[in-house]
């Protein structure tokens, strides 16, 4: 991600975050930070800076990060993005979203604690080395004659039937995979702005799935920060209007 970011970064060490729930937990449990006081844009930016410093774009990490941010958005989204229904937000009220999140975070935390137990165990046992030598060949005798008749052929047919069965469509968990990139969405916004001066958020992402909406939102935050765009939202739950920065200035002038 090219660009010069000279923002004051929030008091966050993103190195310590490994997953969305990690981030959420940390943000929420650290007394001094309320997630609603943390600008998503700043987190995105400081993250991108980090990527830049590493001089390599870890797409895997970037994807994870975006999903992570969409988790954050999950709380904000009910309030930030236009109304449920229009945006297919699964009809979650902010209260429901919060409750859902509490449940998920608690479940996650349980396994996080279990993984810490494993970590301690691992620190102690990781140096163990087991003998890797194979048994001596001298007495190794297994030949075809000794293969027992152990399975019925029907087992093979059963195994294949499982593979032949087309599964019922399960609704895709919106947090498991990112299929769009922030760069793609930036391009979509730029393309849309090429022919006019202003754009409603709905027009670029309104009919898209939730992850695409979230990522489009980050794309806009990024372009906003790069000075490429300006964004207006007149009231809570209101329309988000997007302008190309230059054009708006020109209009004003």
């Amino acid at each position, binding site marked *: 991600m090219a660009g010069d970011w000279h923002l004051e970064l929030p008091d966050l060490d993103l190195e310590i975050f490994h997953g969305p729930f990690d981030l959420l937990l940390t943000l929420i449990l650290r007394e001094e930070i309320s997630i*609603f006081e943390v600008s998503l844009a700043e987190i995105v930016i400081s993250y991108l800076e980090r990527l830049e410093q590493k001089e390599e774009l870890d797409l895997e990490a970037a994807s994870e990060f975006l999903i992570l941010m969409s988790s954050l958005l999950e709380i904000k989204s009910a309030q930030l993005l236009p109304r449920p229904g229009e945006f297919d937000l699964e009809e979650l009220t902010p209260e429901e979203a*919060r409750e859902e999140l509490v449940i*998920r975070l608690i479940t996650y935390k349980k396994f996080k604690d279990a993984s810490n137990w494993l970590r301690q165990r691992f620190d102690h046992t990781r140096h163990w*080395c087991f003998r890797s030598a194979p048994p001596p060949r001298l007495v190794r005798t297994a030949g075809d004659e000794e293969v027992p008749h152990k399975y019925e052929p029907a087992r093979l047919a059963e195994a294949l039937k499982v593979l032949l069965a087309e599964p*019922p469509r399960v609704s895709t968990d919106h947090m498991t995979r990112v299929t769009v990139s922030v760069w793609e969405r930036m391009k979509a916004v730029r393309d849309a702005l090429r022919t006019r001066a202003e754009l409603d958020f709905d027009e670029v992402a309104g009919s898209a799935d939730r992850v695409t909406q979230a990522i489009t939102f980050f794309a806009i935050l990024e372009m906003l920060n790069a000075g490429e765009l300006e964004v207006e939202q007149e009231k809570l739950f209101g329309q988000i209007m997007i302008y190309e920065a230059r054009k708006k200035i020109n209009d004003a002038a």
Partner: protein
Amino acid sequence: MTDMPEEDTETAAGGHPPETENRKPETAALARDIEAVLFISPEPVSLEVLAEVTGAGGEKLAHAVEAVRDKYSDPEGAIAFAEVAGGYTLRSGDAAREAVERFCARPADYTLSSAAMETLAIIAYLQPITRPEVARIRGVGADTVVANLLDKGLVEEAGRHRQSGAVRYRTTPAFEKLFGLSGLAELPALDGFEATAQDVEELREKLFTAAEKRNSGTL
């Protein structure tokens, strides 16, 4: 071994003091056989296999196993006894760790990221479990992490989910070896990590307060 009345199993060095009378020559020979089998086997050996191979069983076998365990109980020893993955095995001793690591040249190789550790914990406790289920708990896609764990041989496939057809995963004996677990039963009860009602309340409270601030404030 019949001609060595007081000799202990592995080293001829030095006679034994008379107080070790409970180790009869028979037990010594049995312990030696067990020791040799544990040494030769690339995998942990279960009590059943030891019984099959030595022809001994019950208390006698158990005592002989204990004799081997005792023999390798010195924390400064080169070789140590371990009970992992449902069997007994010998491993390198902790004291020799540095030399062993230099020899294996593997230290960096065997770090596990937090993501890997979390995923392992989830799979260990909830096995068999599918990738989407792991992803849901961690809140992040599990494909790469699970692929890495598969590569390292720490998890393996365990059939498919009946409805979705998604592959389910479970931990392997290699996982138990790496973490020095005699079996999955050795994992502490998950209830022990359960958040307290107070934790839950606190979390809910903080989210709630944050939301209120949000409603009265700005983005």
